[in-house]
């Protein structure tokens, strides 16, 4: 555990990718096999199940530290992290221990089966054996909340450096539904057996946001465009008669979208399709439902008949990665899409399957005009992909671009401020914003991101001096500061006094030039409601 904790601390303290990779590669060279396997599992989101209820854990920790529950809660509110709070308030370990990561994970997995008093004993014992970072990691692991800020690509590179195996090979071998119980480090990473895992998806190719004008991409005839759908990115894998569906987070979601299993009967074996899982209305020619509809399906492991009928989903296909059992990712996009169209011919119109329609355009202004209509098509913008490009592993710059619609905005007045937590524990970062309705300011939204730390620092000093009233952690402030608020969507909401609710609100910039009296009115916001529907 010491070695793993040192790795975690090294990754946590540096922001330099090169140093993170070096630290991970060194770990993968030196750590025992079983620890290496578990580390790969943890870094790719294969966490042990939660073994202890968070509320219990907080109670036990407060008891050991001799603190009242309310004080524990206040501390938690500042760190924003239960595992960290516990690690910090407990006295230093009395009996430090030198067990490995795998030993600890084995103990942790045994916890759930113990009756509560014994489970409590085991946790308290662990706290007296582990120090600092180890204790924090232990707490993360038993609460099922372990997360490490390491991108899959970075881990792949580190493993490639440590083993001398090519990066794309490593990336492919790590995909799929393996667990440390079903494989070994040697079988997973060192040996190449494609038949070992029929459900294995391919690493997703990810797009960059287009930040300059599309003219910078060169001749339009080198590019293909289609809608940027507002659903869940997914890969449908059909091999050996088995159908699996993977989300971009490499999560197996086959059971959440049972209607898509029909595709197993509609497509040949040895097919892997990349596309978007979309809530879709079959009426007329069919049209995507708003993302809010799909949200009802996300996070439900079992799906009721009614939900299936109300919110059916389809796979909106846009790329073919495996054709007749052959990995065709190196072939150009144009060839892959031609092959996809060929496959689609045999899928009946009744099946939960569509081809994402190509958006032909003669020049860039024509594509800009199409993009302006994205909302009407139920899309977020357009995707621009180079016709000659292979299907890359991960986020490679240059061949795939997403060109989203500009967000909607208004200028609103800050009326309440609340301190942040975690990274921003000592700054005021969570604000409530209001718009004018006659002489009155009506709160419309909260937002807490979009400014620099220096700006938050400045606003924090301002909030301290301009507090009118305090309600616990919330301060009502003089209505004076104006911010441009950007958001992706706006909906009627009878639950809010303002009658509207925003999707993904954030602060675009601080309008130091605008006095509060010149902020926008609620009416302006309601106009947006009617404009985009």
């Amino acid at each position, binding site marked *: 555990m010491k070695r793993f904790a040192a790795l975690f601390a090294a990754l*946590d*303290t540096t922001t330099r990718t090169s140093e993170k990779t070096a630290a991970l590669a060194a770990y993968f060279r030196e750590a025992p096999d079983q620890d290496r396997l578990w580390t790969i599992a943890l870094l790719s989101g294969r966490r042990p199940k939660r073994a202890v209820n968070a509320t219990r854990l907080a109670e036990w920790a407060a008891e050991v530290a001799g*603190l009242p529950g309310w004080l524990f809660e*206040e*501390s938690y509110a500042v*760190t924003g992290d239960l595992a960290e709070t516990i690690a910090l308030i407990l006295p230093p370990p009395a009996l430090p221990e030198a067990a490995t990561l795998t030993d600890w994970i084995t103990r942790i997995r045994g916890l759930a089966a113990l009756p509560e008093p014994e489970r409590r004993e085991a946790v308290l014992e662990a706290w007296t054996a582990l120090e600092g970072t180890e204790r924090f990691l232990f707490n993360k692991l038993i609460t099922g909340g372990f997360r490490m800020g390491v991108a899959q690509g970075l881990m792949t590179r580190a493993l490639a450096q440590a083993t001398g195996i090519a990066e794309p090979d490593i990336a492919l071998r790590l995909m799929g539904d393996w667990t440390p119980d079903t494989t070994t480090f040697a079988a997973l990473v060192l040996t190449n057996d494609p038949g070992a895992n029929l459900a294995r998806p391919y690493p997703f190719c990810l797009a960059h946001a287009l930040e300059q004008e599309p003219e910078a991409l060169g001749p339009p005839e080198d590019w293909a465009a289609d809608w940027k759908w507002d659903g869940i990115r997914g890969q449908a894998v059909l091999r050996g008669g088995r159908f699996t569906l993977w989300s971009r987070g490499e999560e197996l979601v086959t059971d959440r979208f049972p209607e898509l299993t029909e595709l197993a009967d509609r497509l040949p074996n040895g097919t892997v399709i990349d596309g978007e899982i979309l809530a879709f209305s079959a009426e007329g020619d069919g049209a995507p439902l708003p993302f809010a509809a799909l949200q009802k399906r996300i996070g439900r492991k079992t799906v009721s008949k009614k939900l299936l009928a109300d919110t059916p989903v389809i796979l909106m296909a846009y790329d073919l990665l495996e054709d007749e059992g052959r990995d065709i990712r190196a072939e150009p996009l144009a060839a892959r899409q031609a092959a996809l169209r060929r496959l689609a011919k045999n899928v009946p119109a009744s099946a939960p399957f569509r081809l994402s329609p190509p958006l032909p355009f003669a020049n860039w202004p024509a594509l800009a005009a199409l993009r302006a209509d994205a909302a009407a098509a139920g899309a977020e913008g357009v995707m621009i992909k180079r016709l000659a490009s292979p299907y890359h592993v991960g986020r490679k710059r240059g061949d795939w671009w997403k060109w989203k619609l500009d967000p909607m905005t208004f200028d609103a007045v800050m009326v309440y401020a609340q301190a942040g937590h975690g990274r921003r524990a000592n700054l005021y970062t969570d604000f409530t914003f209001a718009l004018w309705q006659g002489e009155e300011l009506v709160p419309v939204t909260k937002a807490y991101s979009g400014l620099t*730390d220096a700006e938050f620092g400045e606003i924090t000093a301002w909030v301290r001096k301009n507090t009118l009233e305090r309600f616990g952690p919330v301060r009502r402030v003089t209505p004076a500061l104006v911010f441009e608020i950007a958001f992706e969507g706006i909906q009627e909401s009878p639950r809010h006094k303002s009658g509207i609710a925003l999707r993904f609100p954030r602060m675009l910039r601080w309008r130091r030039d605008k006095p509060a009296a010149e902020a926008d009115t609620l009416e302006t916001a309601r106009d947006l409601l009617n404009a985009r529907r």
Partner: protein
Amino acid sequence: MAREPVLTFTDRGIHCPAGDFYIDPWRPVDRAIVTHAHSDHARSGMGHYLATPRSLAAMRHRLGPITAQALEFGVPLRIGGATVSLHPAGHVPGSAQVRVEVAGEVWVVSGDYKIAPDGLSEPFEPVRCDAFISECTFGLPVFRWRPEAEIRAEVNRWWAGNAADGRASVLGAYSLGKAQRLLAGLDPGIGPILTHGAVEEMTAILRLQGLMLPETIRVVPGVDAKSHPGALVLAPPAALGTPWARRFGPASEGFASGWMRLRGIRRRRSVDRGFVISDHADWDGLNTAIRETGASRVFVTHGYTTVFRRWLADQGYDAGIVATDWQGDEAEAAAEVTE
């Protein structure tokens, strides 16, 4: 007849009616007693200042010419109907608590303080009193510091590791107090110690005040990573990540603050290395200090006041909150509001 309190809280600062003076006022007054030279406590524009000799030396550097009187630790001074004395607060060299006695009743203003010795500042002295006005910058049980010897070893290990890798070490620390405390713990055998102008000037002033500190080299044009390989550079936090720091090439950046105890804030500062080093009392330190005053009334200021007051009330103290304009050196550094 109800007696007037020894100290009252006004919008200019803490006032003593019996002696007609203020302690660490934030608006101009005739007579100010200043606990220490940090900018949120020692402000310009006062008619007359009273402080320890070390504090005054630093204040003259920061504020320019001032009318002032020096008072040594432990020496009682009669001001009007009050008797005033200064006692070590252990926060930075020269920092004081202010003891005020009026008609047998004793109140103490802590200023900023820490009770663990840092090897440089005059160690904190508990002062018995009836009422204690305590800072509580780190008044939450998540804040707990390690012994000075461990901290020093950790900083030296980091420096030696960087030096071995051929990298400079740039360490951000407040120029008054934290910088000299770190300096006192550095092992000059590892390499040369360079200083930013602000740190060098304050260090020179404190050397004149009798502090023994390792040799330092001021960073001027021509002094960089090439001329001084394996160097450790002491600079104010605001200088990290600026063009000034770039002359040291791909250096490892460290930052010393109590806030580095919190993972979120470590990540926000995104320095290569966060050292948990504070010149304020930690949770245990605050509780110990308050207990040792024997005071039954406690006023808290500067930090997690609401939480800490409730905790003290739970412990049976008559506890209140005082609103002050003291921003706090640590809070400022963490919020990246520059000096």
